[in-house]
């Protein structure tokens, strides 16, 4: 068996690095995590000529080897560690023909690590349009590399790149400039102290204040003694190094690249004039938001209804066709609805990521970040928090995943912590049924009270998110560099392949990540609701039949009463009873208690649970509503769902952290149980207090 060639794809963000990766690997790719951190690890296999295979890693985009985020650390950690099994035989640096100068900075740094390096000049189809011409042989000679001119959009140059990778042994591994000239004396001393080490590697280890997990500890500790220069001195040296590299690049490009600006046509100036405009910019952003909401609520309701129906009939089918028994019940009432509870979110998540990836690919998202940064910063958030907060109105799970591109850890953490306050679509069924029960139908200036209440609940959710961000910003003592540098990329038409792969990958990551937990919780809930201790549960049929013997009930009605009685005495029913004293001051009884407990798997379970408790056979909203309206408060008398308890319940659902899946994602993204626990305690505590005040004040 021939050895696989290890290839590392490296490049600045917005150079189309991922397009090159997709073009090389197609569907032969997988996304995982680097051990211990939540940075995505994308790798794939590429078939090369003569039966050779290449193992390709798509490293996170970075502007240089001076890391300032977790994602960028990954790049240096791999490139500095020759013992890593993924250490590249050849590095492929992807650059954008329009930003060649800036992209070459990273290239010269990688060359200094003495790794054979191929230079991909991507988006070559834009050269003519921009009046750019390149002297490739000259550039190859000066930069000591092989160059592939690639256009992923026009599918050009990929075969040539594969050829170059196959013959990687012919690619030079020499540095193309001598960066140590910036302080000859210092670097000479370094060289003497560590004669066997690569000078540039030592320099990187000295200057990074980040943690290098995989690199030999002793090496770094030995270097710590060597820190004869102050932080400020080192920084000045880094600046000199950067300037030195740019001088070299400028000199090379002066000869190797000519730009005829008279030929350049500038679309971006015109688009930017509108899209970042003080008025039009916000208006257009608002319109785009409307379309996204429309898609998430309206368009995805068709596939969602279909999924809902399919899983319901699948459950029915399993109950009918399979032999009776605990396993069939588990399958029909636990596993299938549990799977349904995962699959039902797929349309919304897919739509959301479709829009987000189109907006990102096109370059528009950077403009939104630019427009919103100042406003969001007042609340300890970043312009980049806008995307998660919008996504949160569909579902907090993809929203939390969308925080990854926020560089400042503090701003990212705050965004993650407050996002679940935004009104997600799972709260909607709960809101709708309670509003229709307790809010009168009247109108106020032509607007229905009920619609106004719903709108108010959205505003409350958003207000809670922003308000708690403000508090967290003051309370959290996290030292994190709060710099904000956003590249404003050129506008591009999104590539279909990239968008599709992103949507597929994000959906998959949701189904297998959060899905496991949703499924587990549904099975546990099923168990708790299907079993109970003692005679009351096990002899429910006898007891209920005896009790209702005098009333002439139909078989169906009797079965419903039995089911209801069983639920009351099941483990979950007992739990409901147990927490009743705690929730009575909020205006709830034990039945609502059960619904709240089971809502923990997912909020929309609330309506279904009440349906079971009130022994209504169907999920039909009107029937449940009538039944709920007839409930009497056992202590205070009068209807259980009145204005006071209704408002209390609405506020409880607005604030409470009742979503196991979100907690699981937050755990994954923050890599600690500390933050999801804090979220749970803070949000649910707030919900309790607010609901308590509301009920006591209104009753």
């Amino acid at each position, binding site marked *: 068996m021939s050895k696989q060639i290890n290839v590392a794809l490296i490049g600045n963000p917005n150079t189309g690095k991922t397009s090159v990766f997709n073009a090389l690997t197609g569907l032969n790719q997988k996304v995982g995590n680097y051990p211990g951190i939540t940075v995505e690890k994308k790798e794939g296999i590429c078939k090369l000529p003569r039966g050779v295979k290449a193992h390709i890693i798509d490293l996170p985009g970075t502007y240089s080897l001076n890391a300032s985020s977790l994602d960028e650390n990954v790049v240096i950690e791999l490139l500095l560690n020759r013992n890593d099994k993924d250490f590249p035989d050849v590095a492929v640096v992807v650059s954008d023909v329009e930003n060649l100068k800036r992209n070459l900075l990273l290239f010269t740094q990688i060359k200094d690590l003495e790794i054979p390096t191929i230079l991909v000049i991507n988006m070559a189809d834009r050269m003519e349009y921009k009046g750019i011409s390149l002297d490739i042989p000259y550039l190859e000679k000066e930069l000591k590399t092989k160059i592939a001119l690639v256009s992923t959009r026009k599918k050009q140059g990929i075969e040539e790149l594969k050829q170059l990778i196959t013959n990687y042994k012919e690619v030079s591994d020499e540095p193309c400039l001598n960066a140590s000239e910036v302080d000859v004396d210092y670097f000479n001393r370094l060289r003497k102290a560590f004669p066997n080490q690569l000078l540039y590697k030592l320099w990187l280890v000295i200057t990074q204040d980040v943690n290098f997990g995989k690199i030999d500890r002793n090496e770094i500790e030995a270097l710590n003694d060597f820190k004869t220069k102050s932080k400020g001195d080192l*920084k*000045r040296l880094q600046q000199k190094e950067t300037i030195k590299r740019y001088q070299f690049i400028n000199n090379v490009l002066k000869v190797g690249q000519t730009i005829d600006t008279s030929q350049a046509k500038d679309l971006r100036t015109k688009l930017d004039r509108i899209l970042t405009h003080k008025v039009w910019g916000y208006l257009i952003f608002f319109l785009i938001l409307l379309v996204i909401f429309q898609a998430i609520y309206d368009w995805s309701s068709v596939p969602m209804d279909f999924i809902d129906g399919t899983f319901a009939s699948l459950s029915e089918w399993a109950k009918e066709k399979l032999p009776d028994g605990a396993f069939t019940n588990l399958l029909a009432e636990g596993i299938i609805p549990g799977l349904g509870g995962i699959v039902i979110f797929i349309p919304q998540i897919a739509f959301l990521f479709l829009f987000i990836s189109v907006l990102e690919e096109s370059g528009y998202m950077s403009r939104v970040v630019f427009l919103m940064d100042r406003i969001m910063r007042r609340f300890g958030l970043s312009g980049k928090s806008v995307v998660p907060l919008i996504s949160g109105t569909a579902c907090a799970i993809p929203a939390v995943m969308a925080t990854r591109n926020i560089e400042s850890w503090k701003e990212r953490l705050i965004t993650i912590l407050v996002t679940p306050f935004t009104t997600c679509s799972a709260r909607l069924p709960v809101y709708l049924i309670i509003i229709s029960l307790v809010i009168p139908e009247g109108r106020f200036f032509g607007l229905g009270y009920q619609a106004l209440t719903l709108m108010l609940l959205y505003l409350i959710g958003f207000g809670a998110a922003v308000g708690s961000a403000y508090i967290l910003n003051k309370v959290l003592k996290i030292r994190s560099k709060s710099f*904000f540098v956003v590249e404003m990329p050129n506008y591009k038409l999104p590539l279909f392949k990239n968008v599709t792969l992103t949507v597929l990958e994000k959906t998959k990551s949701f189904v297998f990540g959060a899905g496991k937990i949703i499924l587990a919780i549904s099975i546990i809930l099923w168990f708790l609701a299907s079993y109970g201790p003692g005679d009351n549960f096990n002899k429910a049929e006898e007891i209920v039949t005896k009790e209702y013997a005098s009333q002439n009930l139909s078989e169906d009605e009797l079965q419903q009463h039995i089911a209801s009685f069983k639920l009351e005495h099941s483990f979950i029913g007992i739990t409901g009873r147990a927490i009743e004293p705690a929730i009575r001051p909020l205006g709830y009884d034990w039945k609502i208690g059960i619904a709240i407990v089971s809502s923990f798997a997912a909020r929309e379970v609330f309506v279904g649970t009440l349906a079971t408790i009130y022994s209504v056979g169907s999920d039909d909203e009107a029937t449940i509503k009538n039944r709920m309206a007839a409930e009497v408060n056992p202590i205070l008398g009068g209807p259980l769902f009145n204005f006071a308890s209704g408002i209390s319940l609405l506020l409880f659902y607005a604030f409470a952290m009742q979503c196991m899946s979100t907690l699981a994602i937050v755990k994954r993204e923050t890599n600690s149980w500390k933050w999801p626990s804090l979220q749970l305690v803070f949000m649910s505590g707030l919900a309790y207090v607010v609901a308590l005040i509301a009920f006591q004040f209104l009753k």
Partner: protein
Amino acid sequence: MQYTLAHLKRGEKATITDVSSIHIPLKLLEMGCLPGNTVELVQLAPFQDPMYLNINGSHLAIRKETANHILIEKVDE
């Protein structure tokens, strides 16, 4: 008077003269914000912050707090 990038008005151009302040992230230099380079203010967000710049063909946005530390010399046109 010593001008900083924060003094720049929309559409104005200047030459960067000094970026040695410790409040300027290295990343900004790496993106081309270096002495001698020309900078143009493309757009300002409301409240004059952040600033959308074109530095020698590199388009980027930075916050005003960072721009305050970048010294410039205005180009007379």
